[in-house]
């Protein structure tokens, strides 16, 4: 299979990319790692007339703490997340997720920005960003703006990113003492999309009470979902098994799975509950200084 014909542009700056997207508005797509877009084009599910390849833009791949934020550049490869000692130490949710995204070969090209902007509810990083309270830094014809992850996902394959905008980086609140987070998904076979996936993030205060909680769900709705009620019931608690079970019940209610080849909706819903308990437990252990 080969993709339909298109015109190819490889800009060397974000401004140039935005200019191209503006010039070809409505008929262009950004090419990053290409591991969602190129298969879609081969299958004729997408046929953009113009591709704007952002891989030649310098300084768009990085992982660094800057002030109160962790910043990850849009063309950072998935395997770069996995290889980062900073993430393994302070943001293990992203190491967990990277380890479970597709396979090692795909991870050498697939990008953080592509995973976030594709808008597939089966992508793993959106749920992580919802749990972490991240924001997307984008640039468009009117300059830069930021969009909260919680306002970014509108519908399947539909995000708040305008067709003339480029995601430049994702910004995550800097890791704090007594913070713990984790991600886990159940997949039917290696490299497949999640039957259900759960991202959780907890920050404890000095006494061990939950100060902040975030929960994101993968693959159980039209978009990645923030289980906000399930998270907020944890805040202020000294969390024990009963709190985790309560949160898991609420997350299960927030899930909107559909039945498909990856499983019946009842099963997926049940798995959300199992995973929330399990992943919250791991986050808690990490926040308390364990593994």
């Amino acid at each position, binding site marked *: 299979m080969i993709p339909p014909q298109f015109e190819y542009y490889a800009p060397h700056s974000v401004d140039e990319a935005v200019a191209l997207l503006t010039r070809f508005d409505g008929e262009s797509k950004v090419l990053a790692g290409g591991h969602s877009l*190129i298969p879609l084009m081969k299958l004729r599910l997408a046929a953009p007339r113009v591709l704007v390849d952002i891989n030649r833009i310098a300084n768009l791949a990085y992982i660094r703490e800057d002030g109160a934020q962790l910043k990850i550049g849009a063309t950072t490869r998935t395997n770069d997340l996995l290889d980062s000692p900073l993430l393994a130490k302070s943001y293990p949710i992203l190491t967990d997720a990277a380890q479970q995204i597709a396979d090692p070969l795909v991870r050498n090209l697939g990008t953080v920005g592509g995973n976030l902007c594709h808008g597939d509810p089966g992508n793993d990083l959106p749920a992580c960003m919802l749990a972490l309270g991240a924001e997307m830094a984008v640039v468009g014809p009117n300059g830069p703006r930021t969009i909260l992850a919680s306002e970014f996902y509108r519908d399947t394959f539909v995000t708040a990113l305008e067709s003339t905008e480029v995601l430049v980086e994702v910004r995550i609140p800097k890791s704090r003492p007594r913070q713990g987070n984790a991600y886990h998904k159940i997949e039917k076979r*290696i490299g497949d999309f999640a039957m259900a996936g759960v991202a959780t993030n907890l920050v404890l205060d000095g006494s061990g009470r939950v100060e902040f909680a975030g929960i994101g769900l993968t693959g159980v709705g039209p978009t990645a979902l923030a289980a906000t009620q399930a998270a907020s019931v944890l805040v202020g608690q000294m969390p024990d098994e009963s709190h985790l079970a309560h949160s898991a019940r609420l997350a299960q209610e927030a899930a909107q799975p559909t039945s498909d080849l990856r499983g019946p909706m009842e099963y997926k819903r049940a798995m959300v509950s199992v995973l929330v308990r399990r992943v919250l437990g791991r986050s808690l252990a990490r926040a308390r200084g364990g593994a």
Partner: protein
Amino acid sequence: MAAVSRPVTHAASLTSTGGSVVRVQTIVNGQAVAAEVEPRTLLVHFLREVLGLTGTHIGCDTSHCGACTVHLDGKPVKSCTVLAVQATGREVRTVEGLEVGGKLSPVQEAFVAEHGLQCGFCTSGMMMTATALLKKNPNPSEDEIRDAIRGNLCRCTGYVNIVKAIRLAGQKMQSAAETRGGPA
């Protein structure tokens, strides 16, 4: 079939021109190559049909099976999901580039010794992934090997011997390095 392509000899640059033809200028197995192709030409088709390097196979064509694995700047990638033009200015290595001076690489030798193949269709991709793994991690455990080849499918299910072959290659490369007094 794939791309309308014609090799060109003149030097040009710039991948940012738009239009229906792009220039690919890359290094494949140590040799500089240049050609003009349609933008939609995939790297695997470029290698097989423009350069005649048919050791890289087309399997699933949807980035699942890994039969098309090549190295792009030293990292294994699925060449059915990379545009040829994206290789411009970068280095590509295919299975044809594994042997040196007519001598099989340690990975190739180990696949022979352990019979790390049945039908052979996945083999070139497996060996490219194995070569990259051993460069990064010279002494991988069985689990690490199995994790590394998650993106390479063997439909004959001959994984046991493939894993053995990769272990053997790692051991041979290590003992060769020790004999040379290099880092273990």
